[in-house]
């Protein structure tokens, strides 16, 4: 009984984790930038949902869509600002790590100045509250509501990536930016847009993070970044579908740990990232070429 609960709950929760991690992978995508501020973008998404709910009485489900254009523009602007200098340097991947780490500190500081240090939460009745009953077990409303908003969102993202013209250009730039530019693709613009989409996915995850984590606070960023990183390393860096599957598996692991060894469950992401890096550094779905 407990086991089924952990598995089904883990899958519902895992869909949230898939969205949580996929944005980090997208930002990594075209320019090999490691966004250590990922968790802080998620945190900003959470505050966005909070403000939209309390100032304009907008349902978090709708906020999930509203935050997208805002963050795409923000991400695009940031990318155009830093990418030229960063990509010229000797070791862009390492420097991006340090740069975004600095950015994460800036965002965290600004957030605590603007919103204060106390955590903020949204009322449970801002989304549907009925529990989902499956095989005689009840599952919390936040789990199934978030999963049923996030699943279509991930679907749209995959369709965008695989079936649209911009998506095709994105994939071309990821596989070889120079060749793509030769073929007439504006690689800088495409990289910038894709970077912005990565931010948008993070912000969407942030809206639901308020419910899953039971609130949003300025200092939550770095821990979320590590979790997201664990998931994308597990599911292979740069592999979108791999990340989504890895997110769901992570959710199941985490739920199993919560049920059977609760006091050790916060070790799950760390053990997962170290074990993956040491045992199968290319991740679940990776080819054996990444240097890691």
């Amino acid at each position, binding site marked *: 009984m407990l086991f089924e609960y952990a598995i089904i709950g883990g899958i519902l929760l895992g869909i949230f984790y898939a969205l949580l991690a996929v944005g980090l992978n997208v930002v990594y995508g075209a320019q090999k930038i490691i966004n250590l501020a990922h968790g802080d973008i998620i945190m900003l998404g959470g505050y966005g949902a909070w403000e939209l709910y309390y100032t304009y009485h907008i349902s978090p489900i709708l906020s999930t869509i509203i935050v997208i254009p805002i963050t795409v523009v923000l991400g695009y602007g940031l990318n155009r600002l830093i990418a030229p200098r960063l990509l010229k340097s000797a070791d862009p991947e390492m420097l991006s790590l340090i740069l975004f780490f600095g950015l994460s500190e800036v*965002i965290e500081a600004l957030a605590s100045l603007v919103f204060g240090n106390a955590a903020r939460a949204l009322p449970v009745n801002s989304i549907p509250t009925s529990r989902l009953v499956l095989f005689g077990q009840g599952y919390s409303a936040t789990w199934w509501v978030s999963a049923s908003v996030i699943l279509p969102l991930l679907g749209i993202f995959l369709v965008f990536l695989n079936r649209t013209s911009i998506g095709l250009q994105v994939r071309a730039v990821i596989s070889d930016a120079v060749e793509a530019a030769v073929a007439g693709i504006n690689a800088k613009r495409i990289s910038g847009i894709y970077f912005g989409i990565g931010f948008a996915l993070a912000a969407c995850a942030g809206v639901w993070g308020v419910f899953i984590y039971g609130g949003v606070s300025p200092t939550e960023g770095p821990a979320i970044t590590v979790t997201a990183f664990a998931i994308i390393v597990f599911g292979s860096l740069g592999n979108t579908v791999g990340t989504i599957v890895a997110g769901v598996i992570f959710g199941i692991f985490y739920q199993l740990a919560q049920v059977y060894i609760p006091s050790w469950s916060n070790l799950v992401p760390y053990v997962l990232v170290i074990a993956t890096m040491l045992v199968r550094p290319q991740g679940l779905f990776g080819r054996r070429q990444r240097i890691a």
Partner: protein
Amino acid sequence: MPKLDEIDRTLETESKGKRLISPAVAALVPVVVFAVGVHIYSNELLLTYMAIYIALAQGINIIYGFTGYLPFGYFGFFGVGAYASGLAMLDYNVPPVLAVVIGGVAAALVGALLLPLFRLRGAYFAIGTLAASEAIYAIVSNPSLQSITNGPYGLNLAAYYSSGTAYGTAIALAAIAILAASYVRSSKFGLTLKAIRDDSYSASMSGVNVPRQRFYAWLIAAAIAGMGGSIFGWSTSVFYPQAVFDSSLSVLAIVFALFGGVGTVWGPTVGTVVLYAIYNAIGVSNPQYFQLIYGLVIVLLVLFAPRGLAGLRQIKSRRATTVGAKND
């Protein structure tokens, strides 16, 4: 190729005498300043912390500045040292100074245990060490281990408190760390490390035992952090696990080192003194403003001065020499 320049300079322009004197000066000046400083500025605990941070920044310098491996999880060694020395004092009644050495040894042992992380590179190594240190923290602070580590409730070392000795030990540690960094900079060992950093494949082709040299640098850096943590715990007397396993410890050490300039001997010392002083002037009452400032400092450093203060100075002196050459 600025990196080759740098190696040429170390090998050619520094005569043997200078090679012996300059590390001594680099270590002696801070020692004298700290010894005198405590009579002028009486907040001894703050100066102790500053000396510990100098040691940590030099530890980052040794492992990142000379090998290119950036350990985000550096704080793990700090925490291990604090706990190993604290438990040595509490459980076995070891004298504090000896306990500090034990803390360093324990951290080095954990460093040896984490050696497989060197299979990772760049960002993966950075995040791998972070995950490892967070895991150590989760284990040490786990309520299930309360009988051994006192779990989330920390250690109380008040019985061993002795302000003067702790301060002296902290200064000694800073001096040791500076000497270690200057040894690494001017010795053949340091040269092999830099060769590994710039091109590990070519280095191994030239007969450098890459894993072993890197391992030594890693152990030195780990031991320094372990001793730093030990002195921190000892001089703070009562600490909770989240105070010694605090990721902002590695953050600050990395920022201090980068700000001053890694790969140099003076850079991390100067960077620590300047930024830590600012931190105490504004950071204690308004931590967010300080966080904002050092976050911006990092962003600007990466974009405009990736080699820190020392880099700025070098550019200036190089310009001066080119002007001189033209005049000839």
